[in-house]
C-alpha cells in the first residue's frame, strides 16, 4: 500500500552519479544576480522579508541576505516556513511526512515577502507556502525565488526570480546537495534518474 517513499522530500545526498546542472560557482553567481534583481525591483528595502522553504531554501535565503547586505548595506530578515502541514496530499497518505522547522522572526503584515525554494516543479509547495504565509499575516506582496525551475507545473504559479531553467523528465529527481554545510559547504544541483518506485522527485 505504501510502497512509495514515506516522505516525498527525500533526504538530500551528495552527488551520486547524476548529471550536475549547477555547480557551486554557478549557484553563487545566480544568487548574486538574483540579489541584484530583487534590489532592482524593490522600491522599499526595509520591507523586504526573505522566507525560506526548508530544507533547500534555507541556505539559499541566507546567502541572498548576505548578498543584499553586501550590495545595498541593508539587513534583510530571513524566516523559515515549513509547508508540510499545508500540503494537499496528506489525506492520500497513511505515512505522515516529517515536519521541518518554522521560525518566523517578524510579522509579515505589509512586508514584501520573497519565498525562497531550491527546486520548483509542480508549484504545489509554493501554493502551500502562500496559504501558510496568510495565516501569519497579510503581506503587501509575495514573490518567489527558485534556484532551479524544472518545469512540470500543475498549478498556475510562476517564478519571479529563476536561477536556471533545467528541462527534466517527470520521473527524474533534482536535488541540491551540500545543505548541511549551510553557507560554507559547496552547493551543487544534480539531476538523477528516477527510481522505479520513486515519487518523482521534488514537488
Amino acid at each position: 500500500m505504501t510502497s512509495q517513499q514515506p516522505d516525498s522530500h527525500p533526504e538530500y545526498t551528495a552527488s551520486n552519479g547524476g548529471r550536475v546542472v549547477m555547480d557551486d560557482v554557478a549557484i553563487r553567481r545566480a544568487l548574486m544576480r538574483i540579489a541584484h534583481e530583487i534590489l532592482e525591483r524593490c522600491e522599499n528595502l526595509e520591507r523586504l522579508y526573505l522566507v525560506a522553504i526548508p530544507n533547500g531554501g534555507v541556505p539559499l535565503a541566507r546567502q541572498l541576505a548576505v548578498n543584499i547586505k553586501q550590495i545595498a548595506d541593508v539587513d534583510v530578515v530571513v524566516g523559515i516556513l515549513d509547508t508540510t502541514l499545508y500540503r494537499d496530499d496528506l489525506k492520500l497518505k497513511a505515512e505522515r511526512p516529517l515536519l521541518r522547522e518554522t521560525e518566523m522572526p517578524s510579522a509579515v503584515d505589509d512586508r514584501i515577502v520573497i519565498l525562497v525554494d531550491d527546486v520548483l516543479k509542480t508549484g504545489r509547495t509554493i501554493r502551500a507556502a502562500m496559504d501558510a504565509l496568510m495565516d501569519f499575516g497579510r503581506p503587501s506582496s509575495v514573490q518567489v525565488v527558485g534556484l532551479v525551475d524544472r518545469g512540470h507545473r500543475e498549478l498556475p504559479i510562476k517564478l519571479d526570480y529563476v536561477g536556471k531553467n533545467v528541462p527534466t523528465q517527470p520521473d527524474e529527481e533534482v536535488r541540491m546537495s551540500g545543505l548541511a554545510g549551510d553557507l560554507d559547504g559547496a552547493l551543487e544541483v544534480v539531476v538523477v534518474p528516477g527510481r522505479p518506485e520513486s515519487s518523482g522527485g521534488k514537488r
Partner: protein
Amino acid sequence: MIGRDLLGIEDLDRAEIERILETAEHMREVGRRVVKKVPTLRGRTIVNLFFEASTRTKASFEIAGKRLSADVVNFSASSSSMKKSESILDTARTLEAMDPDAVVVRHAVAGVPKQIADVLAAPVINAGDGAHEHPTQALLDLLTVKLEKGRIDGLTVAIVGDILHSRVARSNIYAFGKMGAEVRICAPPSMIPAAIETLGVKAFTSLREAIDGVDVVMALRIQNERLSGTYLPSVREYSATYGIDREKLKFAKDDAIVMHPGPVNRGVELSHDLTDHRPSVILDQVRNGVAIRMAVLYLLSGRRQEGEPKLELETGEEK
C-alpha cells in the same frame, strides 16, 4: 513506523518515541502563532470517548484536534448511552458507523481502549485506562524534560507517590526507561507494586534516598479515596514523609525540576510554594500536552485500517 493505535508506551520503541517528540516540538510553534490553526486535518473527525471524568486531558485533545482543523466530537459518560446500559463494544460499533478518523478513549478499566481498537477501523488513542497506561501523559512528560534539560538519555528521574494505582507512573517508567534515563520510584510500602523491579526501576521507601542526586522529581496525585484507610494512615503523615517541598528538594540536583501530572492536591504531594513556582514546570507540562496530542493525531489520523473502502484512496498517485 508507529502502528495504527497508541495504546501504551510499552508498544513503542525509542525511534517511534523520538519521532513523536520531534513532531511535537514543531507543533509547539503552531501554538505560538496568532492564528493557532493549520489545515492539516480539515474534514477529519476525531471522537473523544471519555467513560471516566476528565477535564484537562479531554480539553487538551479537543484543542489539539481543533488546532489541526479536525472536527472534534465529545462523548462523555454522563451524556452517553453508557447510562442506558449499552455495552462498550456496541458503543464502539455505533461510533464506527459514523466513520471517525481517530478515537480517543479513556476508561476506568484497563484494556478497554485495546478492546475498542480491535473492532474499529479508526486508530484508537488511549487517554488513560485504569491503572494500565496513559501514554500521551508520559510523552508530554518526556517532551517537557527534553526541552528543560536538552536530553533524556543519562538523566535520573524519581517518581514519587501512589505507584500501585498509577497509569501515569507505569507509562513514565516505560517512557523514561526506553529513552535511556534511570528511573527510581518512591512510595509507602503499601503503594509499591510487587515485582516492580522487573520493569527496570529501583524502588525506594525513603524519599531522601530516592531523590538523592536526581535531575527530575515527578510527584503523583494521591487519589482522595486512598488518603485514609488501607493504603495510608493519614494525609498529614503522607505529606510529611513524601510531600515535596524546598527543604526535601535539596537532596536532588541543584538544577532539578519538579513535575506533576495534575491536578495537584496542594500541600499534599507538593508544597504550595512549589506548586506555583520554579523549579516546578507543571504548566509547561500542560502546554506541551497539546503539542504532543497534535503530534499523535497528526501521525495516526491517516491510518484507518486497510480493507476499508476509504483506504483505496491511499494508493493514489502523488499529485
